[in-house]
């Protein structure tokens, strides 16, 4: 048992003596969080728009200002020819072209439903879809105005269902509230996976592992000594990240923090086990990095961090049952944002626990002192 103490001592000395390591442990979470949480949003605003007005009437001008006034769009080019507008789109200077046909106002009067042409640059199909939605709603509002103005509405008894939407747990629909818990998960994962696997492989690469293998040091002592430092550092970073999240983004922390750390500790078992496993199948730090990166990309993309798990095809959701990151993100969001308790997350917790035990056992079994 004492020997674990010696290993821990050596590991911590090595980690912190590396002068560039300490700022990384602090810097990485803050930078990641600040950038990612602020950048990530699917809402659009100031979409660059060109308007080609062939009608030049008061109605067309009102339509233009309706778009210009909306926060979704920014009209950057006015009253051009179709050709010019198309060129601007090709240059990427506008993403949407609204073409108002000549005779718009007249047609509205005459109750011929005139068409307005809208061209959307669909290279980013996400944005295009959103822009489409915004355009439809703006035009729909404008139409309502018109109907009032030109008296298309007959005063008649109509039955209306009014809907009131309430958004719980995130009433202002802030994307950061959604992202930050996920980012914290990524943070913990990076430390637990990359750093641990690289650390062990480093000894392989340098050759000091041979010296260790020749000693009577029991392999599970060695493993504990190698993994525990990163377990501690990851949890510490989590605490740091939570604090930063609170300070900079005012994320809600509704549920029990103790529960969060408890779950994180179990999650780290999974990740550290995987890191150890990776270290047994790689020989160089570079390989360790790449293999870790490979797993991370898959796990993270499918985890529900960026896009909802429920939107994935069924076969993918089945595969996702093996994705520990998905469980952890779900738990984090539930506990932090909704205050879910242990009973609410017990299935996810148990799954993580089983993964953790399995992961460590697999990795320890694979780790051999002998070649």
């Amino acid at each position, binding site marked *: 048992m004492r020997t674990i103490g*010696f290993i821990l001592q*050596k590991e911590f000395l090595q980690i912190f*003596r590396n002068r560039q390591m300490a700022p990384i442990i602090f810097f990485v979470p803050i930078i990641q969080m600040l950038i990612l949480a602020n950048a990530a949003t699917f809402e659009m605003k100031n979409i660059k728009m060109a308007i080609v007005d062939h009608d030049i009437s008061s109605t067309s001008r009102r339509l233009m200002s309706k778009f210009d006034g909306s926060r979704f769009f920014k009209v950057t080019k006015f009253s051009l020819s179709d050709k010019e507008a198309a060129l601007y789109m090709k240059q990427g200077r506008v993403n949407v072209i609204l073409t108002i046909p000549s005779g718009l106002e007249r047609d509205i009067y005459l109750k011929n439903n005139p068409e307005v042409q809208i061209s959307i640059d669909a290279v980013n199909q996400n944005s295009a879809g959103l822009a489409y939605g915004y355009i439809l709603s703006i035009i729909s509002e404008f139409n309502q105005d018109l109907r009032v103005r030109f008296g298309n509405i007959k005063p008649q008894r109509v039955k209306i269902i009014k809907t009131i939407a309430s958004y719980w747990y995130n009433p202002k629909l802030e994307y950061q509230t959604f992202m930050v818990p996920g980012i914290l998960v990524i943070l913990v994962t990076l430390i637990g996976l990359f750093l641990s696997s690289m650390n062990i492989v480093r000894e392989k690469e340098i050759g*000091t592992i041979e*010296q260790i293998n020749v*000693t*009577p040091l029991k392999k599970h002592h060695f493993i504990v000594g190698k993994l525990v430092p990163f377990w501690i550092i990851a949890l510490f970073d989590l605490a740091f990240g939570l604090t930063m999240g609170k300070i900079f983004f005012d994320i809600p922390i509704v549920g029990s923090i103790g529960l969060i750390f408890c779950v994180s500790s179990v999650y780290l078992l999974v990740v550290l086990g995987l890191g150890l496993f990776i270290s047994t199948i790689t020989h160089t730090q570079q390989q360790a990095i790449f293999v870790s990166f490979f797993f991370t990309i898959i796990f993270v993309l499918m985890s529900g961090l960026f896009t909802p798990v429920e939107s994935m095809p069924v076969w993918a959701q089945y595969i996702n049952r093996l994705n520990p990151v998905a469980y952890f993100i779900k738990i984090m969001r539930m506990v932090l944002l909704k205050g879910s308790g242990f009973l609410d997350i017990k299935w996810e917790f148990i799954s993580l626990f089983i993964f953790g035990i399995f992961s460590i056992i697999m990795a320890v079994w694979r780790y051999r002192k002998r070649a």
Partner: protein
Amino acid sequence: MEVGKNHIIEVRDLVKKFGSFVANDHLTFDVNEGEIFGFLGPNGAGKTTAVRILTGLLLPTSGEIKVAGFDVYRESNKIKKNIGYMSQRFSLYEDLTIYENIRFYGGIYGMSSEEIGAQADLVLNRLNLAHSKDKLVGQLPLGWKQKLAFSVAILHRPAVVFLDEPTSGVDPITRRQFWDMIYRTADEGMTVFVTTHYMDEAEYCSRVSIMVDGRIEALDSPDRLKETFKAKNMNEVFLKIARKR
């Protein structure tokens, strides 16, 4: 197999194959307690492989091997408590200080804090490094690193210490000092098993085995080998052996 009172290492018909390549071909030899046993041969002869098998880093393909009275297949961990090892590649942590390295390995071998402290002082004084104990090992010149690595390998007073090409790349003066250390170690009762491709170092050993292409071609004391092969020095002995094949 009975372990003779004086045989600290017993090897019978050791074979190690890597695929179809035979690295060690039916090696048979004994090492006596307290002697300096030289394992000579050109690069690629299979010396390092044999050492790795004796230290428990590699499993042999076949053969009976006992080190310090323990069987290499089944009692590998007991062997490790009783041996020391200095590998060809570097074995101390460059980003730890001299003292920290000593403390780490001492602890791994189960030495108490007092023992570690005492041994550390001894080593530092002997190597004239007492004032540098907080210096990072990475900052030492190669020769000092080698000597330090050797000292750390015998820190726990093992029965046998294995040295794999310990003087490679080191200047002649340091080599001389290194061998002084080896003599002192043997005097203190530890057996030294040293591999080298420097034939002149063979003169310093009690007995020497010459390995060529995975086989032991000669095994005896340097004097007797020179007599047998009618050679003036070990280099000539080796050349005669090589030519014979």
